C-alpha cells in the first residue's frame, strides 16, 4: 500500500473553501486516496511490464551511447551506500504504513529526510516505529533527532548503520543545470531520475527549488544531486497530474538543521514544543512579510486588499455575459504558505477572496438578498482532534466611506499552544446596486499579531464611487 509519503499542500484541505479552480497548485508527492490509487495502478500495470522488458545496462549502452546515462549511473553508484529507505509501521505490524527516503548527512548514522515522512511517528511516538532499509536489504531501527517543519525536514538516527555522509554544495545550481534525484518511488526499489534544476521558485513564501524531473511518492526525503554527486536539495513535493514539475528544499536548510540537532533523541514533549515554536515563528514571519501599507485593487467602486506581497498569488474572473441580472467579479488570493504539521492540519496559511456584485436590473431587495447568499462561504474545514469550535462576533462597522457587516470568528489549537485560526467575513451594507462579500482565512496564527493584521486588512477597504 502506498500511503503518506507525501507533502499535502492542497488548498482545498486548508481552512476555508478553495477557489483555485483555474490554476492547480497542488504540491504533493503521492498520497491522497485518489493519488495513491492512481499510483498503485501505475505500479501494477505500468511498472511490471517495464521491469520485464527493461533493457540491461549493456544493451542500453549499445543502443544509446549517451554520456548522460553513464553519468546517472556514476552518480547513483557514488551515493548508493548513503541512501536508505525509511519505513513507518503502526504498532507491531510487519507491513509498513508509510515510507520515504533518507540520506546520510553526518557520521554516526545520522540521516536527513522530510518531516512529512516521519510526521506520524513524531505525533504518535508510542504508536509508530521507524525502520531503515538499505539498498542491500539490511534493516534496523531509527529514532527522530530533530525536525524543521518550516522547511519540511527531519533528521533521524540509526543505531547500527553509519554510511559515509553525502556532501552538500553551497549554492543552488544555475537554472538549466543537469540534476538528479534519488529515492525509492512507490516502493519499487532504489531509483535515480534525471532532470534539470530550474532555480528558485518565484513567488513562493518558503524557498523551494524548481526541479524539472520525476519525483514520485516514496522519494520524499531523498537527495537532489548535481553531476558530481553533491547534494543541493531534498526531494519534497510535486504537482499532481502535471508533468515533471517537482520541488526541492534548498540544501542550506538541511545543513542548518544538521548543525542544530542533538546527538541523542529528544523527549517527545520537546519535539512537540519545537514544532509549536516553529509554527509560531512561521506565522510571525508570514505576518511580518505583510507589514506596511496593504496593496489594494478596485472593483465596482470598492477598494479591496489585493496582491499584498510577491508571494501572494491572486487570480480574478468575472461575468462575461452582459445580460446577467447581476454582474460579478471574483478575486482570490492565496499565500500557499501553510505548513504541513500532520494529516488534516496545516498552519500558518493566509488566503482571501472578494466577490463583488453590481446590478442595473435588480431592485435593492433582490440585490441585497443575492448579496446575502453570495460568497457566504461559511463552511470551514478542520478536524476536532486539532482545533476547538469557533467563537464569533458579528457587528455592523463603519469602514472608510461605507458601513459593512463584519463577522470575525476564531478557534484555538488543541495541541499547539497559542495558535489560532481566523475567519473574517465582510459584507458591504451601503449599496443598493453595488456590493461585495469578502472572506479572509488565516490558520495557525498567534492571536494578537493576527488581530492587528485583520484590523489593517479591514482598514484598507474603502468605498470610492
Amino acid at each position: 500500500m502506498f500511503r503518506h509519503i507525501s507533502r499535502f499542500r492542497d488548498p482545498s484541505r486548508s481552512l476555508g473553501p478553495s477557489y483555485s479552480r483555474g490554476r492547480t497548485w497542488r504540491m504533493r508527492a503521492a498520497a491522497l486516496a485518489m493519488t495513491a490509487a492512481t499510483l498503485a495502478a501505475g505500479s501494477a500495470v505500468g511498472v511490471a511490464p517495464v521491469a520485464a522488458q527493461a533493457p540491461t545496462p549493456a544493451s542500453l549502452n549499445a543502443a544509446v551511447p549517451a554520456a548522460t546515462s553513464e553519468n546517472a549511473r556514476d552518480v547513483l553508484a557514488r551515493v548508493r551506500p548513503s541512501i536508505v529507505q525509511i519505513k513507518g509501521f503502526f504498532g507491531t505490524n510487519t507491513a509498513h504504513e508509510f515510507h520515504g527516503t533518507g540520506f546520510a548527512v553526518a557520521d554516526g548514522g545520522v540521516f536527513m529526510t522530510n518531516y512529512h515522512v516521519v510526521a506520524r511517528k513524531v505525533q504518535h511516538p508510542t504508536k509508530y516505529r521507524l525502520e531503515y532499509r538499505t539498498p542491500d536489504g539490511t534493516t534496523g531501527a531509527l529514532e527522530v533527532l530533530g525536525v524543521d517543519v518550516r522547511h519540511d525536514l527531519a533528521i533521524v538516527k540509526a543505531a547500527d548503520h553509519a554510511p559515509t555522509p553525502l556532501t552538500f554544495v553551497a549554492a543552488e545550481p544555475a537554472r538549466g543545470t543537469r540534476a538528479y534525484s534519488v529515492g525509492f518511488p512507490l516502493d519499487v526499489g532504489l531509483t535515480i531520475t534525471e532532470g534539470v534544476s530550474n532555480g528558485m521558485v518565484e513567488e513562493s513564501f518558503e524557498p523551494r527549488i524548481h526541479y524539472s524531473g520525476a519525483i514520485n511518492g516514496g522519494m520524499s526525503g531523498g537527495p537532489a544531486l548535481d553531476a558530481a554527486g553533491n547534494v543541493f536539495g531534498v526531494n519534497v513535493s510535486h504537482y499532481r497530474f502535471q508533468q515533471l514539475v517537482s520541488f526541492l528544499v534548498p540544501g542550506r536548510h538541511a545543513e542548518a538543521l544538521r548543525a542544530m540537532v542533538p546527538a541523542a533523541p529528544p523527549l517527545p514533549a520537546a519535539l512537540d514544543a519545537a514544532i509549536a515554536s516553529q509554527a509560531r515563528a512561521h506565522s510571525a514571519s508570514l505576518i511580518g512579510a505583510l507589514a506596511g501599507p496593504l496593496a489594494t485593487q478596485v472593483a465596482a467602486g470598492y477598494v479591496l486588499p489585493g496582491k499584498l506581497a510577491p508571494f501572494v498569488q491572486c487570480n480574478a474572473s468575472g461575468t462575461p455575459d452582459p445580460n446577467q441580472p447581476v454582474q460579478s467579479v471574483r478575486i482570490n488570493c492565496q499565500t500557499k504558505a501553510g505548513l504541513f504539521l500532520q494529516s488534516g492540519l496545516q498552519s500558518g496559511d493566509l488566503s482571501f477572496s472578494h466577490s463583488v456584485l453590481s446590478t442595473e436590473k435588480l431592485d435593492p431587495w433582490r440585490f441585497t438578498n443575492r448579496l446575502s447568499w453570495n460568497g457566504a462561504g461559511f463552511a470551514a474545514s478542520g478536524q476536532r482532534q486539532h482545533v476547538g469550535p469557533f467563537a464569533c462576533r458579528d457587528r455592523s462597522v463603519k469602514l472608510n466611506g461605507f458601513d459593512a457587516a463584519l463577522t470575525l470568528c476564531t478557534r484555538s489549537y488543541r495541541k499547539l499552544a497559542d495558535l489560532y485560526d481566523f475567519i473574517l467575513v465582510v459584507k458591504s451594507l451601503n449599496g443598493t446596486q453595488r456590493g461585495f462579500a469578502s472572506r479572509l482565512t488565516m490558520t495557525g496564527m498567534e492571536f494578537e499579531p493576527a488581530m492587528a493584521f485583520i484590523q489593517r486588512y479591514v482598514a484598507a477597504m474603502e468605498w470610492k464611487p
Partner: protein
Amino acid sequence: MNASATTLPGVGETRTTVLVEVLDRHGHVRLIERIQLDGARRTFTIGRSVDADVVLDDEHVAPLHARVELTADGRLLAGDLGTVNGIVVDGVRRKDGGGLLVGGTPFRIGRTQVRLRSSADPLAPEKADRHEHRLHISSPATLAGLAVLLFLAQESYTSWLGAPRDLMTAFASAVSLKAIVVAGWVAAWSLLSKILIGDWRWLRHLAVALGIAIAATAIDAVVTMATFAWALPSWRNASIWTSVVALAVALYLHLRNAAPLPRGRAMALAAIAPLLLGIGTTWFYERLARDDVRRIATQTRIFPPYLRLRPAETTDAFFKTAVSLRVEADSGRKSMSADDGDGTTAD
C-alpha cells in the same frame, strides 16, 4: 323543537309526543321516530320485530326488547322484557322489568344508542347566531381560501426575491413541494376528525395548517429584518423556537377541531409535544455545536440600507471588544467532549 304536547302530560285526557332518537357513535341523531301517547295508551315497545312500536335493525336486540312507560308525572321509565343483553343505562347493564329512568339521556339497547325525549325534558336556550353576512370571515371556507391566497402570495414573493431567471418554474416547484406536504398533513388531521367526531372538517384543517405556516414564516422574516435593522446579535436557536410555538398553536387548533377535547386538555396536549421537541432539538444542536469545529453559527442577512436603524460602530470599538474572542475560543476548546483521537489539549 322536536317534542310537543297538546296538553300537559298526566293531566286528564293528555296527548303526549315522545321522540325516539337513534344516535350514531359520535352522538349525532341518525333516525327519529315519533310516538303519540295518550290516556288510553301510555306505553310503547322497542325491538327488532315488526310488532315492536320502534323497530331497531340490530342483531343484538331482542324481537321485543324494552317497554317504555310514560308516568303520570311525565317521566319516561323503561323495563327489560326478559332479554339476553338487557338495557345499558349510564354504562350499567340492567335487566330490571321496569323503573329505569331513561328520559333525556342516551342509553343502549343492543349496540344501538337511543335517546328518548318528551316535552317534560328541559331544553337549552336558543343560541345566538351572529352570522349576518353572506361571506363571513370566520367560516372555514373563507379562512381556508384566504390562507391559500396568502400562501401563494408568500411563495411568489420568495421566488421573486430569489430572482431566478425562470421565475415560474421556481415558483411552481416550491409551491408544489409544499402543497404535497400540506395536503398530507391536512389529510391526516381530517381523517382523525372523521374518526373522532365523524366529520372531515378539511377546510378548517387546511386553514389552520396554512395559516400557521404563513404566520411562522412572516414572524421569522420580521425577526430577521429586525435583527438587521437594529444590528442585533443573531440568536441561533430563534428559528427552532419560532417553529415550536407555531407547531404548538397549530396542534391546539387542529386538536380542537378534530376531537371533542376541552380547552385546557387540548392546550396541554398541544404544548407538551412541541416543547419536548424544541428542548430536544436545542440540546442536540448545542451538543453538536460544542464539538463542531467547522460550524460558524452566525448568518448575516443583508437588506437594503434604508432599513438600517442603528448606526454602525467604529472599527476600533469592534476590535476592542473582539479581543474577548480569544477567551471564548479557549473556553470553547476546553469544554469540548473527550476526543476519540489523541485529544490531549495544550494545557
